[in-house]
């Protein structure tokens, strides 16, 4: 049954990917600035432009380009960068691992931080911790993440010199230096997430704690701790699980900014560079991979949701 449920959820993903890729593809073609002119630069003669366009398949109708691209993409071929000639798949491979690590850390911070603040706030209502958590829940969404990154760098790198201001070390090259490098960007990336989860979980916990089954728990003789952790949290987490799925997209987008400031060679850097250069194949490839990641995460959150909520029929 559960497998069937997963399969159904999974099949549902396919039309979604199809629409998404179509949107992305057409959007990219709308972007002005001919990549051929950019590639040829000063050598752009009429013939050369036409030749290169043909070579890159840009002279075909958009829908053909899409079908061609999609067909190749399904077969794992994302084409070559218009600029570097590098295989897009290869380029993405090199950047993806980095971004995944970054987003994973950001996500961990967001979830851990969000849960910590939300629970603290509910556990100690009207205490300074409650107010702090509530304030943070709002403040976090109000600070642009580049400002946050900058402030962190000024404090922890330039002044205290505790943590590096730029760069990235993969976790496979040493957990210590990985942590040192990832702390600031990870936190900058997660700030909004912490806030969002704090808010969401707090209000959902608050609602849950008013539920009758919590009163039942108290009536059984349970204490606050038990009521919150054994009874409230699992129920309150349900709406948050969906939020976490959505956060993923936000975070992947935010890597564009964070990776720029911390000079981390991830997908964000890759895509922003490619957008600037009109390197369409790379943009398409990166965005496709990002979407697949979001979709996969959403798929997983659905599964987690179904596991957390016995009321979901599968």
């Amino acid at each position, binding site marked *: 049954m559960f497998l069937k449920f997963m399969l159904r959820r999974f099949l549902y993903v396919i039309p979604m990917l199809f629409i998404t890729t179509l949107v992305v593809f057409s959007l990219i073609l709308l972007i002005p600035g001919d990549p051929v002119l950019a590639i040829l630069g000063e050598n752009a003669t009429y013939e050369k432009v036409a030749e290169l366009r043909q070579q890159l398949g840009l002279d075909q109708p958009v829908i053909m380009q899409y079908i061609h691209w999609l067909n190749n993409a399904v077969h794992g071929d994302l084409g070559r960068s218009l600029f570097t000639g590098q295989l897009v798949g290869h380029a993405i491979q090199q950047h993806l691992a980095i971004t995944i690590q970054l987003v994973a850390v950001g996500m961990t911070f967001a979830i851990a931080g969000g849960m910590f603040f939300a629970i603290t706030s509910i556990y100690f209502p009207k205490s300074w911790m409650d107010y702090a958590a509530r304030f943070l829940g*709002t403040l976090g969404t109000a600070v*642009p993440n580049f400002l946050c990154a900058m402030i962190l760098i000024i404090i922890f790198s330039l002044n205290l010199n505790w943590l590096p201001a730029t760069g990235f070390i993969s976790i496979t090259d040493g957990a210590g230096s990985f942590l040192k490098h990832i702390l600031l960007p990870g936190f900058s990336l997660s700030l909004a997430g912490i806030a969002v989860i704090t808010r969401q979980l707090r209000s959902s916990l608050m609602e849950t704690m008013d539920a009758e089954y919590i009163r039942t728990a108290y009536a059984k003789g349970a204490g606050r701790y038990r009521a919150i952790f054994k009874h409230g949290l699992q129920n309150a987490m349900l709406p948050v699980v969906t939020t976490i799925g959505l956060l993923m997209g*936000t975070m992947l987008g935010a890597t*564009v*900014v964070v990776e720029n400031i911390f000079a981390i060679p991830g997908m964000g850097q890759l895509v922003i560079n490619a957008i600037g250069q009109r390197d369409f194949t790379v*943009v398409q490839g990166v965005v496709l991979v990002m979407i697949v990641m979001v979709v996969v995460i959403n798929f997983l959150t659905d599964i987690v949701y179904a596991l957390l909520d016995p009321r979901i029929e599968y």
Partner: protein
Amino acid sequence: MSFKTIFKRLRAERLAFASFIFLVMLVSVALLAPHIQPYDPFKQDLTKVMQLPSAEHWLGTDGLGCDVLSKMLMGSQTAIKSALFAIMIPLLVGVPLGVLSGYFGGVIDDVFMRIVDAIIAIPALILALGITSALGVNLWNAMMAIGIVFTPKFARLARGQTLQVRLEPYVEAAKISGAGFVWIMFRHILPNISPPIVVQASFNLSMAILTETTLSFLGMGAQPPDVSWGNLIQQGYSLIYINPWMIVYPGIAIMLTILAGNFLGDGLRVALDPKQQKIV
């Protein structure tokens, strides 16, 4: 519920009410900006760039020697105008689509919602970047992109709410009396789904300002000579080692506005919730 009651209930939420006052002040400042700004915000003086605050220029001057205070005031106008503009798109496009989708269900709903899901899966900032570069880099295009990015969220919200409201007995009563879709949509659905949408809009107004700031930071937002807090921040960021204050003013303005928008949203959520009302 009348505006008066909403206002009364909002006043009970202290933080939200303070935010409301702040935003009212901001709007007044924005409206009055042309009259109260000490200088013409576009008046350049290249001999006096990046000056620290002084009696003459309370907040100093920017990279072109313009008065920063005047630009900040001008920026408040831009912030409000552009955020309203950005929010109009989901309100005018997303909400009706969501209502249609939720009300009629079936194939329309399936198709709309698949599209909405698909667009939501595209990382918002990347989508906004893509749309802005497709439309051309300037403030209004950036805001349009932001509006488009918000649209699926509103469509989804409106749909969810409509799904609930359309089954309410008062809608059924109207149906029994022969009301058609248009009547039901305007008399029953829209008024009743508006509170969560107003709340969402209130959050997203500030989100729009925040996103514009991020786009500006990436060079895809407002461009001088247009004045926005976002491009002041961008300039402040790039000249931070010349005069760090330049980033502080728009930074604080943005943060306060967003905070106010969020607190107001929280307050409205409570004020507009009929569950919180008691029989009088």
